[in-house]
């Protein structure tokens, strides 16, 4: 009983001491306008999509609750399953190749050499360029008779390719454009990783007589691994939702040979106006992306990868 005033005093003094640091409750006000915008143009569409996916929408405004019928039809839809397969095929190639090339590029641009800044800018340019604009140029380059690419192939004695005009070459060709477009992003992420690396392991490895491959394999690669994981997740998400270049270059064709999930989704929604059906596609798509984003966040926190 006697020490209670003392306790109270110490408690209140602690409160006083902590008070200048406790402003957290006021900060949400700063986020309020953004919260309103995010709720109306981002969260509302998400929820509305889920709502639409369990309804059958008729032109003219009517709708029926159909439960999971849209999802059942979707799973049975040959075209949807085919587009899922095409998306996986495209994604695997469009992830692995940029990761390998991006790693090489990061190692190259990590070194000092003349005109490094200029060459790095040129290398990064594809990623900044307007996708539609470069896709149109690629399309002209793919022309079977007059395209410059077949001419360049003929110079080194390779027979002309049909590029995006044949069902067997269309996906590898689109992957090539995607690789051209996004390898720079992988390079930038890994370059950031290389910049923060300690130099000591390399010095001691040199003293121990390690060659450059051993240094890469046993020092660089393990240290770079978290960054490669980040690049891997980002690339996977981006490759899954590729749209512009396929839409412009091949329009999902020939036939449906390059109809990825996103192209399928676009056609169902804005060509056939199957709103409920395409919303079901979005829900499936969204689930995959959220899962991958959470993986990314987990990796990001594990590596404390930040500015």
């Amino acid at each position, binding site marked *: 009983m006697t020490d209670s005033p003392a306790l109270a005093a110490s408690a209140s003094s602690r409160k006083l001491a902590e008070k200048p640091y406790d402003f957290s409750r*006021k900060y949400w006000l700063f986020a309020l*306008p*953004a919260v309103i*915008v995010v709720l109306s143009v981002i969260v509302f569409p998400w929820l509305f999509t889920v709502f639409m996916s369990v309804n059958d929408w008729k032109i003219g405004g009517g709708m029926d609750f159909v439960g999971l019928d849209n999802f059942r039809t979707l799973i049975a839809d040959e075209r949807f399953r085919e587009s899922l397969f095409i998306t996986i095929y495209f994604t695997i190639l469009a992830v692995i190749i940029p990761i390998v090339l991006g790693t090489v590029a990061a190692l190259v641009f990590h070194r000092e050499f003349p005109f490094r800044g200029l060459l790095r800018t040129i290398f990064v340019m594809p990623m900044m360029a307007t996708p539609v604009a470069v896709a*149109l140029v690629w399309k002209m380059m793919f022309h079977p008779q007059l395209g410059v690419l077949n001419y360049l192939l003929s110079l080194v004695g390779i027979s002309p390719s049909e590029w995006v005009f044949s069902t067997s070459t269309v996906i590898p060709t689109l992957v090539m454009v995607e690789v051209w477009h996004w390898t720079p992003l992988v390079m930038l992420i890994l370059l950031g990783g290389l910049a923060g690396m300690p130099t000591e392991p390399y010095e001691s490895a040199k003293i121990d007589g390690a060659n450059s491959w051993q240094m890469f394999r046993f020092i660089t690669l393990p240290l770079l691994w978290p960054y490669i994981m980040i690049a891997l997740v*980002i690339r996977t998400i981006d490759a899954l939702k590729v749209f512009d270049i396929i839409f412009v270059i091949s329009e999902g064709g020939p036939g449906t040979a390059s109809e990825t999930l996103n192209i399928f989704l676009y056609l169902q*929604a804005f060509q056939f106006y199957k709103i409920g059906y395409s919303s079901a596609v979005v829900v499936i798509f*969204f689930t995959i992306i959220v899962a991958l984003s959470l993986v990314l966040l987990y990796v990001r926190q594990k590596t404390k990868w930040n500015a």
Partner: protein
Amino acid sequence: MPVALERLLNRIAFGLSLFVLVSPAILVFFWMLSLSLKNEVDNTAWPPVFIPNPPTLANYVEVFARNNFLLYLWNSIIVTGGAVLFGMLIGVPAGYGIARSKSAKSAVLILIARMTPALSYLIPLFMVFQILGMIGTKSALLITHLVITVPIIVWIMIGYFENIPAELEDAALVDGANTWQSFRHIALPLARPGIVVGGILAFIFSWNNFIFSVVLGGKNTRTLPSAIYNVLTFEQISWGPLAAAALLVTLPVLLLTVIAQREIVAGLSAGGLKDG
């Protein structure tokens, strides 16, 4: 001697890999420029003509003369400019609020918003705009572009504000400043580099966006990327004007990349995940 030889071989291998890495980018941009500066005969010649001789600006003249290019340019400026401006006004304070209150949940929401495909917003927004009679208006496009600009600006600003030591502001708060004053006079000036990076990236991703304008843009309100796809490709199949238009569309972004190279590299390697 073998050491010198090895060093030479190393340098050749290095130069070769550099060449292999950079040449595809040079090829595409060079070819874009080359097509845009040649006449139609040279553009369809076989073997292809690489260096325009003599170079002609006729394709550029045609782009401006035969199409509403200036109208589409104006649309792009309004939509992207507006979306970046509003994105800044609401995104910068939001980044500050999230960084200072350490609310990881809002950061997750922002990340997911950056990651979801644009088409998934488009179906519901399309329906809402249809009900409101706003399909084909620039305001509908501008509002939709906030989906691009707000998350990237918030995401980048969180990173920058987190790196500003809270002690600086605590001192001001103890001296009787309110949170707004400490944001306005201490945090905001210190975060200026972040604002530049966020603004540049938001501009680039909004400018490059194609799908929103394809779905929501009207005949006279579409932005440049969907205009070159829709109008130019159907009205004229000749390569020269098309390449000229493509180059003009992407030129602002390429110039910005060259000028602000350092900021863009910093922003993207700091976690500015790309948008699509």
